[in-house]
């Protein structure tokens, strides 16, 4: 119940902030407040390495004077700090220009129902127990194989936060949520050559975390399989994105249909609404109300109600990803996506990972990408990669120091299949994705 009291107290602070904004002459205002605390421990080489106690708080306000806008934020919650922060925001609004799209969300789009999405599962673990868990996880990884030679350690993290959002249209709501993770990273060595890889598990509820043994084993297996990596000569071939990095492909797609790049005309998917950009079997949905999921939320960062909807069906873009401002710039309505998407899922196909390898037949399985070589304006794509060379559906040997390149428009159009080996850990969920052909460069 202490949490409920804290929530009431923080709501009262947000309300006082909104009142102060109106008192200082703003015609409308929006404010957010968050308080988080957490514990992170790392064990390395069988012993404790770091203990970190986190305690963060932050307060942000945006004021509107008609269509002019100003923002300010602070880490202080005292009445004087609130007054000063509002004054700073108002001062900025004296210099910004009237922008006919600026302002609070449409009242009728604000969330009015707040289902319990079960996002709050505190982990009653103390530093000693967290360290013991991290040591157990790292021990498993280090003891897995004689070629495991060194370690970057195993970490246990637990965070709990309260986020309150309010605006002068009467919206005032708070959400409590937790996030816990267990991760491990080890090194392996063969013939003077070192490789490193990692594995992690993350969940709202600590009982949903993978076991320390599983995380340690996966970290060791992923590291060992990289030993003996070779280069690859320059060629064109099919490319299979492993599920854990295929999420990035979907992330690039969402980035390109997001309001900010669309109204700035800096996206390679301008005017794609209603157009087919994927093969017909591709369906992509947003499910914001999944119980206990990492991306779940009843409302977006402006208080607009989120709703389950199709973003792509039959390969056709059915919805952009918009907040209030970008929606108005485009002459549309907010899709409840200020701050991003909430649980994005691409319908899995019928093949498991091994069947996806068979479908790939001879080509490149990519398990790691490096760098930021994605041009959102043109869709040009060129990134460093590591993975495995596959022949006749069987993994032959690890490869590294190569690049894969193409144009995202072509890559999306040429998706051959999506696996059912879905990575459930994140906000974007997909199975492995097979692309018909890309350019691979190597030494």
């Amino acid at each position, binding site marked *: 119940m202490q949490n409920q009291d804290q929530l009431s107290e923080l709501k009262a602070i947000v309300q006082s902030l909104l009142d102060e904004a109106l008192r200082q002459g703003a015609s409308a205002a929006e404010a957010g407040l968050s308080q988080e605390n957490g514990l992170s421990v790392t064990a390395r080489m069988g012993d404790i390495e770091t203990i970190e106690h986190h305690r963060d708080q932050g307060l942000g306000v945006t004021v509107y004077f008609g269509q002019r806008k100003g923002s300010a934020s602070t880490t202080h919650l005292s009445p004087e700090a609130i007054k000063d922060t509002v004054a700073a925001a108002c001062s900025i609004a004296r*210099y910004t220009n009237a922008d006919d799209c600026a302002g609070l969300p449409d009242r009728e789009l604000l969330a009015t129902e707040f289902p319990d999405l079960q996002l709050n599962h505190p982990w009653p673990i103390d530093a000693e127990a967290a360290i013991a868990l991290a040591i157990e996880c790292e021990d498993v990884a280090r003891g897995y194989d004689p070629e495991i030679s060194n370690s970057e350690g195993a970490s246990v993290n637990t965070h709990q936060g309260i986020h309150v959002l309010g605006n002068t249209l009467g919206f005032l709501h708070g959400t409590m949520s937790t996030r816990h993770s267990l991760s491990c990273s080890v090194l392996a060595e063969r013939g003077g050559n070192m490789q*490193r890889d990692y594995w992690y598990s993350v969940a709202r509820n600590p009982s949903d975390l993978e076991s320390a043994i599983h995380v340690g084993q996966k970290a060791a297996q992923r590291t060992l399989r990289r030993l003996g990596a070779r280069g690859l000569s320059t060629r064109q071939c099919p490319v299979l994105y492993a599920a854990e990095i295929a999420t990035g492909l979907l992330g690039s797609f969402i980035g390109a249909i997001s309001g900010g790049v669309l109204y700035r005309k800096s996206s390679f998917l301008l005017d794609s609404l209603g157009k087919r950009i994927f093969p017909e079997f591709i369906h992509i949905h947003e499910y914001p109300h999944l119980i206990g999921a990492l991306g779940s939320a009843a409302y977006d960062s402006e208080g607009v109600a989120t709703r389950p909807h199709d973003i792509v069906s039959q390969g056709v873009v059915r919805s952009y990803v918009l907040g209030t401002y970008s929606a108005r710039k485009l002459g549309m309505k907010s899709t409840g996506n200020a701050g991003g998407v909430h649980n994005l899922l691409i319908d899995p196909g019928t093949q498991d990972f091994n069947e996806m390898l068979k479908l790939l037949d001879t080509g490149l399985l990519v398990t790691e990408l490096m760098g930021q070589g994605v041009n959102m304006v043109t869709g040009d794509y060129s990134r460093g990669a590591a993975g495995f060379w596959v022949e006749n559906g069987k993994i032959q040997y690890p490869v590294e120091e190569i690049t894969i390149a193409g144009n995202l428009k072509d890559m999306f159009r040429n998706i051959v299949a999506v696996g059912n080996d879905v990575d459930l850990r994140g906000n974007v969920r997909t199975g492995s994705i097979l692309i018909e052909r890309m350019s691979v*460069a190597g030494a």
Partner: protein
Amino acid sequence: MELITLAKQAILKPSGITESEIDTIMSRLMSSRADAADIYFQSTRAESWVMEGGIIKEGSHNIAQGAGVRAVSGDKTGFAYSDRIELPVLMEAANNVKAIVRQAQQASVGLSLPPSWPSYYAPIDPIRSLEDRQKIDLLRRVESETRKLDSRIEEVIVSLIGVHDHILVAGQDGALAADVRPLVRMNVTVIVVQNGRREQGSMGGGARSDYRYFIEQDRALNYGREAVRQALVNLEAAEAPAGNMTVVLGPGWPGILLHEAIGHGLEGDFNRKGTSAFSGRVGQRVASDLCTVVDDGALPGRRGSLNIDDEGTPTERTVLIEKGILKGYMQDKTNARLMGVKPTGNGRRESYAHAPMPRMTNTYMLPGPHNPEEIIRSVEKGIYAKNFGGGQVDITSGKFVFSASEAYLIENGRITRPVKGATLIGNGPDVLTRVSMVGNDLELDSGVGTCGKDGQSVPVGVGQPTLKIDGLTVGGTSV
């Protein structure tokens, strides 16, 4: 006024905490016989302005302050922080972190703070260096002058950021070290359209200075001119080649090569733990004898410069590679102590809410003997890469990438036509052994770099002369 007085006024006075209370917290921290302990106080004010679509669209103002408390015992670190600079809160933090000390260690071996240190920038407040009205006028002028440059320009976005940061480090012996760090940054992005083809160009700069920096030497307007030039070049760019080829890197920002290929791998923590591809290689050849690379936090006014690092160690010029031979690593106090070497002023942290670790400051290669034109002339077929986006490295395998945003083909000793941006990939420990020519045209970048490590971002600088690398993999699409 002395930095220490300024920092005390900015941080201690408003919070009401006294120096004797800091001593009390420190005694608590050291009561468990930690090897080292410190308290890091910070107060930061920042603002940003954005002009877009022809209007001043957004502005924001941020104030953050707090303290981080740390105890170190052997290779173990306990760390806690709070945004409330109050005795009871910091005492609780001290209690939490001293739990890290489980066995009694040898007597305290921590390093004391320096009695004094030089200054490479003035302790000015950039936010007050211009009236708000003048900042707006500057943005408007840059936007309108840039828009006039070409009829194909569709959008111009100009941003301006100023930061005024005060830090105070309390060491275990009760001594205090302080810094007042101004930082400014401006950026111009343009979108151009020609026959339905859309391209972007972006240029910016910054320094540990105030906003007048952008007015001096016409810098702000030059960012606009350069952004437009790059965008127009990209309109003409053809597919980039794919494969291993000779690559000539232009001077300045392409020095991100050094940051990724060798810089991270030479940070003390990775080498102490033996997880870097450079571990145990001091004294060995890791580059051609044309290459001398330094990390220098003591350059006047640079974005990556610091008077003292975030542990109170004065910054310095650290030679990383001298004539191709690996000389040493970049160190914070903890890793220096554990490796039995001196700290090099590279202990940095994003804020009071983050624990310090070894980080780069300004990393660059010294100039060599070759004329840049001579370098281009020596290449029969290859790529000339002039501008870059970001990069990344796997410090264990040594593989690194950096992404060209402006590049050209070199054919028969001449730069011929522009090609699209592409990622370049190489192996850190051997890429510099293939440097066959080094230009006499050392340039430092314009002050735009931000480096990320373990989720912490810090401002950095890079630089290099024109470099020729005999064989680097270029990730184009044209096979």
